């Protein structure tokens, strides 16, 4: 198993990926965003009262495997996705990007986010929290194997639904 490599990555490279991802999501280029993910990627939003929990035993807000994540994108592009039609305007501020660990091929990274969300006839809502990523290099590209968006609010409250991708 001497081919087993240990990944190397710079913070700048992770920043480029996360900033690009934020731009794709804010632009609702969701198919392009899916292309940033590995074929077995997962997406989690833990419940506000159990931010460190495991989705196997805990009711999350979102716990998507790649199958449901692709279906989520199908739904978000459908005009009958009433919660997001017309789509929310969102603007993400990504900061404090850090490479937090490397385990074999898996790179762990973290970042903070502030996402402003605006809808016609609605309150302006601000989602604050942090991301925990697992990244893998595939075909020369850094890809997202797992993304976990952890909200700081004690409860969703007036944030309401998490109907767009955090």
């Amino acid at each position, binding site marked *: 198993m001497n081919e087993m490599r240990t990944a190397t990555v710079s913070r700048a490279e992770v920043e480029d990926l996360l900033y690009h991802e934020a731009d794709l999501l804010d632009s609702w280029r969701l198919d392009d965003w899916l292309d940033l993910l590995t074929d077995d990627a997962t997406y989690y939003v833990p*419940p506000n009262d*159990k931010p460190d929990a495991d989705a196997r035993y*805990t*009711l999350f807000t979102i*716990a998507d495997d790649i199958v449901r994540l692709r279906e989520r994108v199908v739904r978000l592009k459908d005009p009958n996705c009433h919660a997001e039609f017309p789509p929310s305007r969102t603007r993400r501020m990504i900061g404090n990007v850090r490479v937090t660990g490397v385990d074999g091929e898996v790179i762990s990274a973290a970042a903070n986010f502030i996402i402003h969300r605006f809808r016609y006839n609605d*309150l302006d809502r601000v989602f604050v929290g942090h991301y925990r990523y697992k990244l893998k290099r595939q075909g020369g590209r850094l890809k997202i194997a797992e993304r976990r968006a952890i909200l700081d609010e004690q409860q969703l*409250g007036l944030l309401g*639904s998490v109907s767009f991708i955090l």
Partner: protein
Amino acid sequence: MNYQPSGHDFVVENPEAKTFFVNREVFVSDEVFEREKRAIFDRCWVYVGHASELKSPGDFKTRPVAGRPIIFCRDREGTVRALINCCRHRGALVCREREGNARQFYCMYHGWTYHPDGSLKSVPGEDAYGAPLDRDEMGLVPVPRLESYRDFYFANFDRDAVDLESYLAAAKDYIDIVVDQSPSGKMQIISGTQEYDIRANWKLLVENSVDDYHLISTHSTWLNYMRNSGVNVTPPKGELLPTRGFGRDLGNGHLTTDNPNYRGRPVAKWISVYGEDAKADIDAMRNELVQRLGAARAARVADTNRNLAIFPNLVINDGSSVTVRHFYPMAPDRMHVTAWALGPVEETEAQRARRLHAFLTFYGPGGFATPDDVAALEAAQLGFAAWREVPWSDLSRGMAKASDQQLATDEGHLRVFWRKWSEMMEARS
């Protein structure tokens, strides 16, 4: 004297014309909102929590119940309590954490402490009062009534209310169906709470929770997901989904949908979404149900689903997973929703994961369906700004049919709620 601040009835039923109208002032009025708190929430049995949330002596959860700050806890002897979280001395919360295990509740203002059974434990500088304070008399005030049915705990702020089981009436039978999913008759609230606000009147969520008429228009993206996953969600020609499901009156304002299942159930009806691997496991669960309950009852548990609304504000959705969801008005145009997943205590890791996966596909603030319900309710609330010009909501579907022929896509079961609401609002307080 009827409660008619605007000089008109809020709920107008006309059996000859086969119409049933609700005046939209009930969704916007501050007066109605204030009266509901006293006439409904202070007189009905309102949900507090589930016994499984308090595993050990000293365990507690703090949460609002009917607008009051409540400590739902298990005392040292194992008795479940619902104590008002308000210091007897000067009123501060004596517990400011969401949950935990406490040897005592400590008021950080002047240091009074209370045992988990509510009794007063200690008072700094007690000699200033002359005689020692009475430990029971000066304890945390319990809710006036606390009773449970099958581990579901309810409080009543009316000391003279009927007992809980009488109140629940035929809703008990439907709670029994839910609990029968567990071999030991023990269900548990699964860790993780979904708490979110909806900018709409709380009564709209009662309607929405049991209204199957909106399924195709509001939830087509969820139906697409099911279809893409290989589940047959096409009703026979000329019928609506769920085909031949019924809406039922359970007495005392409680109501339910009672539907043949097409969307899969973790206990114990397989659909393709679960994967081939799950088939044998689901079959084994089905066999357990048949062994324990007999074929007919097993089919009742596994092959039907129900959205059960317990008046006024508790909904148990026993569908593609089980949700326990209650909600309380913060203002005429805003409610706070708290929802949990419920499952049999015996579930294996794989079974639990399947249940939670099924839950999240449909329900909750990140699901494929609930956010669209929220959008629909908020759209309705925005429309109600014109309640003076467009005053009536129409709940007449099914009025032309016999009471035992009301489909879940009709509105007969919604009318059950409104009749009870109207009766309680008009009653002398």
